[in-house]
């Protein structure tokens, strides 16, 4: 049975897995952005927090993903549903690039510009919203881009705990020793990652010119 054959026969299931995959990545990125960017800003305001926050995100990054999914199984609310666990884990993994790029982007704004803005009497909030965030936007989006691409790859592993997504085919293919089935999961995941990478890269360029 060829890859095309398999895909044609299972196109509805494939579509559903792609949508599940996008759902897992989309929701986790939503939470990661919601959490990561404010944390990144926080770190620029209070450098004391640099070590705990960036260090913490760094440590999370070093936990093997399969192990993290495993750790979450006995967790009270998360353990009940596989997609909750997957989303939680993916969110944690996406935090580091987001926090780090937000921090680097804001700190990378030309010192003279920040000094001028302060000297003109901008409040901290005005400085952040009118000057620092817009000028850091390119770097922040680059962080979102890296985090999303990593998440798309990582989300395939979520299938190991039954959270669905394109990992289903990859694990099924492994069990069946069928390259076609593996590829039917891996190729769409790779294409998805490329698409996101291209789109966010384009956005990054547009917004920073």
């Amino acid at each position, binding site marked *: 049975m060829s890859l095309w054959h398999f895909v044609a026969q299972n196109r509805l299931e494939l579509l559903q897995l792609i949508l599940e995959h996008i759902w897992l990545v989309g929701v986790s990125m939503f939470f990661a952005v919601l959490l990561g960017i404010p944390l990144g800003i926080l770190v620029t305001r209070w450098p004391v927090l640099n070590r705990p926050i960036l260090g913490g995100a760094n440590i999370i990054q070093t936990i093997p993903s399969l192990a993290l999914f495993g750790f979450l199984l006995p967790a009270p609310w998360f353990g009940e549903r596989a997609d909750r666990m997957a989303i939680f884990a993916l969110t944690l993994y996406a935090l580091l690039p987001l926090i780090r790029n937000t921090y680097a982007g804001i700190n990378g704004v*030309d010192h*003279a*510009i*920040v*000094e*001028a*803005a*302060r*000297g*003109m*009497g*901008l*409040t901290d909030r*005005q400085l952040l919203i*009118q*000057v620092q965030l*817009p*000028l850091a936007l390119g770097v922040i989006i680059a962080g979102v881009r890296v985090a999303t691409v990593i998440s798309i790859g990582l989300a395939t592993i979520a299938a190991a705990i039954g959270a669905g997504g394109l990992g289903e085919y990859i694990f099924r293919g492994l069990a069946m020793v069928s390259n076609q089935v593996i590829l039917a999961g891996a190729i769409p995941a790779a294409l998805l990652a490329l698409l996101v990478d291209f789109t966010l890269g384009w956005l990054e360029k547009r917004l920073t010119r």
Partner: protein
Amino acid sequence: MDSVATDVAIQFRNVAYELSGGRELLHDVNLEIYRGETLVLLGRSGSGKTTTLKLVNRLLSPTSGDVLVNGRSVRDWNVIRLRRMIGYVIQDIGLFPHYTVERNIGLVPRIENWPAHKVHQRVLELLALVGLDSGLASRYPRELSGGQRQRVGVARALGADPPFLLMDEPFGALDPITRAELQKELAALQARLKKTVVFVTHDLHEALLLATRIVLLEEGRIVAIQSPQEFLSSKDPLTSAYVAAFGAGDCWKPERGAS
């Protein structure tokens, strides 16, 4: 207007500024800056000129002593209110690259909640004041020449018509011809606007052209406070060394009818 001449606008009282490591950048600075004058802080690199300037708009706070603006300690001012009545121009200009010229110049009026049409009007007024074509309003800073950018920097500092202006080597990065042009224009502008200007430079020619009084700083101390004429004829060794270094004694001719 004569009584205004002795009205103290900014006062330094025994001001010292020390870095956290203990290195003293300013030592016992006492200085009165009169309303409407252009006070030039002159000195070599590291003499404390910029530090002195930043103490006025509280980008730095004195480690001892006090700086008074309009008779009130900068510590007691709401720092945002204080800064909004003090225009600030720096050498690197610090124009916001993501804003057009119009938004850059109109920033302070806008955050002061002026109505949009008044901000727009003010921007056009200021562009004319600094000798820029109103067609530049929609350009971005990167599309301007160095001289144009610095003019925008001055216009932005004047945005909400602040009574004070702090200028930190604003023309330092310009070519000599553009610099001379802008110096003359600033002198003319100041003759009209009568802001209280504190101007930092290491260029004696610039100081002589612009200053009502020159403050010579050396290693964080005030060495001399003199009018340009007094400065040129001074017998003080540091002052005359500065004059000699620039060969200014011969070439400077008073251009303004200073009395």
